[in-house]
């Protein structure tokens, strides 16, 4: 009886941790992995192969707090003629014909954004050497098809970069 109880207790203990690891995996799958997008847009093709600059589509990077997501019209300015036989481009055409925006899933998001003020413009125009590039935070997107968040975007990560670049670490620099 004691032997049975001991093995049952051990089974419960190990089963608990197996369940915890599976739960961590489920949380990663639901909240932390690279999200699937309504259209399998490839940065590898557009940036890596075609050679488009980031600002071609994300045109507010130097002008605004937000980098901006290109409109369907912007996409169609090329894809009305280019690669129209591809299934993903046909999905794009569908959005255009229905005059609907594409419901992209957000990849980069500051976790508690209500308390943080972040400006793309400030960072792109920062007087640091070497100059900041999009890849510093977003990774080398020209090599990947499916975009994922490569930087944690957590405070420690921001502060370590501010320290290494000699930028202000005053609380009010980011928290308003």
């Amino acid at each position, binding site marked *: 009886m004691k*032997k049975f109880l*001991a*093995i049952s207790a*051990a*089974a419960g*203990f*190990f*089963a608990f*941790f*197996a369940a*915890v*690891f*599976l739960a*961590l*995996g489920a949380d*990663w*799958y639901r909240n*932390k*992995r690279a999200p699937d997008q309504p259209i399998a847009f490839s940065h*590898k093709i557009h940036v*890596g192969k075609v050679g488009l600059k980031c600002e071609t589509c994300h045109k507010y990077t130097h002008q605004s707090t937000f980098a901006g997501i290109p409109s369907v019209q912007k996409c169609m300015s090329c894809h009305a003629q280019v690669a129209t036989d591809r299934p993903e481009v046909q999905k794009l055409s569908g959005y255009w014909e229905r005059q609907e925006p594409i419901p992209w899933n957000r990849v980069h998001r500051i976790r508690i954004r209500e308390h943080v003020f972040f400006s793309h413009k400030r960072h792109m125009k920062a007087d640091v050497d070497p100059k900041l590039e999009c890849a510093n935070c977003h*990774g*080398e997107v020209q*090599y*990947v098809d499916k975009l*994922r*968040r*490569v*930087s*944690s975007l957590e405070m420690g*990560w921001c502060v*370590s970069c501010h320290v*290494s670049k000699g930028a202000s670490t005053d609380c009010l620099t980011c928290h308003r």
Partner: protein
Amino acid sequence: MEFFNQFGLPPSESYLELMRYLLVMTLLIHVTYMSLVAGSTIISLILNSRDRDVRNTHFGRLAKDLMDMVVPSRVVVLVFGILPLVPMWLIYGQWLYKSIASTMFLLPVAAGVIALALVVILIYRATMRDDGDNSMANFGIGSAGLMILLAGMYILATSTVRLNDPERWHLMQSPGRLMVSFNVIWKYVYFLLGAVCATGCGMLFFFFHWPGRGPVTDARYARFVKNLAAGLAMPCLILMPVIGFFYLVTTPIVAMSGAVYGLATGTVILMFIIFVYLFQTLLAERSSYGVHAFLLFLGVLLLVGVGDQLNLVNATAEHTAARIVEAEEAAAQIALEREAERAVAAVVDVARGREVFETVCTTCHRMDERLVGPALNTVLPGYAGRIDDLISYLQKPSKKNPDFPPMPAPGLPLSDVKSVASYLLGETTDSGTGENGGH
């Protein structure tokens, strides 16, 4: 890293895949062995220390037997403890080509420290006496060896686990920032627990089932070994999932994937089965369970090793994708250069054609007499104005005339075949006409 960046090449996808399999196997051999060495040295030193407080002949005997088990000779230490670090360094060098990670600097440091530790542990083992009566000096050497070994393994853990955090690679230039990381610390504690557990399972395997060694005939000593092995391994098995949890939650998200969590779950299931086997060993005194426990623990180490590599694959996905693109560009460049060389070489040279004909073809052919093959002036007129057909035939001959044996492929480069064909057709045009035949 400079060395690799200067002399290395960007790896292709399939090459990198092969390297990863090799790395997992190398790590399995090395980590298993180092776990056994670390665990055995820890237990041996504790037994030595206890032996002085409480006189027990089993303590001194087991302390020595343990060291005989893991460092039986210098060759074993060299093959399992030191040599695997060399391919490991080369594989990481290829994987991390052009990265700024400090791994390529840390790995040789770790290798040096581990090699020194193993030498000191070999000395510790050599100073142990068969009667189990070991002195303080012996204990001091063993402790020094263990401390150096633990330092070496921490550096090794740092050099690999820190790769999971590519966003901080550029911030890790100072040793303090590099070495202090909760992720590394949890991995290291996991290794220490695994080391004691591996040694416990290893004792049950090597002491009772290793050919030429077991079984232990002294029943009291055998019971002592079994109880100690299972009694040490079981608490460590209980703690390993707890520490594994802390390791998982401190690992950067960028290094995670569903498979990593799946493997972690798999290790917990294996640990439970090992726990049951060890529990049965304690109760039933059946040593055969030790074989199952040890082999399953090797399975745990394999799953952990694969999980670690998956972490690294995920963390370095962008870095690797960039290198693969570089490799593809380099391969395309080489192909272009070869094509250009071939184009230059493919320029028809009739003089060269004559030279090749006289050295290669005249073994079987003459222009105006039958030899092994037909007289060429009876055959070649059929190819007049069809040089491409003649070139195709010379590249890949087929039997055409039943009166002659089939012609073997001469195995000439395309440029030589073109030159020979031009020479032959020019020669035939000059000398007359005939039937299209061949072999």
